[in-house]
């Protein structure tokens, strides 16, 4: 449970919190619970919001969360639905298949500085598909990121959801200058948004220092960081997903 006395000592952190989304399969829910547990292991005062479905949520886990919202759609990119609904001043979104491994997690919100959104960079050697066109490629890994609650930033988050929905269904492919292979990737939607005129004023930057420490994907080269990662990004084993209970759309 959050410790109110400690929170009062750090007023600048009062309204900052973590956002976790678990959808589609209960393997992601189990993983989300582990992630929340790991955040609290290293940062007991942390506030965490969980977006999931009633079919997945177990009441015994409520104590881990500051807010439990059961309105998440059954969708592999349900995170995009949840992002604009944050209640925090600064939100740290973390993919459910991550685990916190350092006390430095309590410093995550300080990293944002004067930026609106802060992410880590994709490593080409560890990415499935980064090529958008002959001259453009995906840069940002969207598994862990910070964002503030400015109107423009939240509007961008809202558009990320609506634009993604358009991207995966639009026929014919609306961006012939870009590879169709980009269709399933929410990073591509993000790319379209941050390169658009509408969001030119949104300040985006990479986590300072060794950005990989904040989103260390399990197949990254060890040389990416000199210190232990703060957030380790695993991938759920197919066995876990197969064994997990899928939530069916009604």
């Amino acid at each position: 449970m959050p410790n109110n006395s400690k929170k009062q000592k750090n007023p600048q952190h009062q309204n900052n919190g973590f956002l976790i989304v678990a959808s589609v399969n209960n393997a992601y829910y189990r993983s989300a619970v582990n992630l929340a547990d790991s955040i609290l292991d290293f940062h007991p005062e942390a506030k965490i919001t969980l977006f999931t479905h009633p079919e997945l949520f177990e009441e015994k886990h409520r104590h881990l969360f500051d807010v439990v919202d059961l309105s998440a759609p059954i969708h592999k990119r349900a995170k995009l639905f949840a992002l604009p609904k944050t209640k925090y001043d600064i939100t740290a979104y973390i993919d459910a298949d991550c685990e916190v491994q350092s006390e430095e997690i309590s410093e995550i919100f300080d990293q944002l500085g004067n930026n609106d959104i802060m992410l880590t960079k994709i490593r080409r050697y560890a990415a499935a598909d980064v090529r958008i066109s002959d001259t453009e490629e995906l840069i940002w890994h969207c598994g862990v990121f910070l964002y503030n609650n400015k109107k423009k930033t939240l509007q961008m988050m809202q558009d990320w959801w609506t634009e993604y929905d358009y991207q995966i269904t639009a026929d014919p492919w609306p961006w012939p200058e870009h590879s169709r292979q980009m269709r399933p990737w929410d990073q591509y939607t993000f790319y379209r948004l941050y390169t658009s005129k509408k969001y030119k004023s949104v300040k985006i930057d990479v986590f300072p220092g060794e950005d990989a420490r904040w989103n260390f994907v399990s197949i990254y080269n060890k040389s990416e960081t000199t210190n232990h990662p703060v957030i380790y990004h695993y991938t759920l084993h197919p066995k876990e997903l197969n064994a997990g209970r899928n939530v069916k759309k009604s």
Partner: protein
Amino acid sequence: MAIISRTFRNVTWTNIETKNAVNCEILVNLDNGSTQIFTAVVSKPDDGSINEDWEAIMEKFGTESIDEATTESVQAKQAKREQERIDREETDKRQSEFEKQEALFAFKLEAFEIEAVKNSKDRATKALIRKSKSIPEVQAYTTILLMKELNNAEQQQKTEEPPASE
């Protein structure tokens, strides 16, 4: 369409020892401005007759130049094969590491679902489990944590038990 000219390129020996045939590309330029490219093997006839293509190639390139091109081509092929082997090894290594990490995560999830581990207030040992880089490490620290929890439970039970009456 009529043929205006024929030229040859990428000429290498099929066998650098015997030097009696070459691999090459033949570029056929047509009167409509287009060029057709054919991959061919041109041989030196062994019955004493004349092969015009062979004669043209030998006149244009000469054996020394074909020797050099053949050596370069063999070296390039070897380098390509070596690079492919390195890439394949790198991919296999990464895939193997990926699978290892998937298994490690699955194991950790199970460890943290053990009630005594989940409810433990021993954050230092829990942190060691979380930072573990292999399944045996997770197992070892989980066992240590469980033993500590059992000891704590025993101690607590002892302090709660009323002293035995005489």
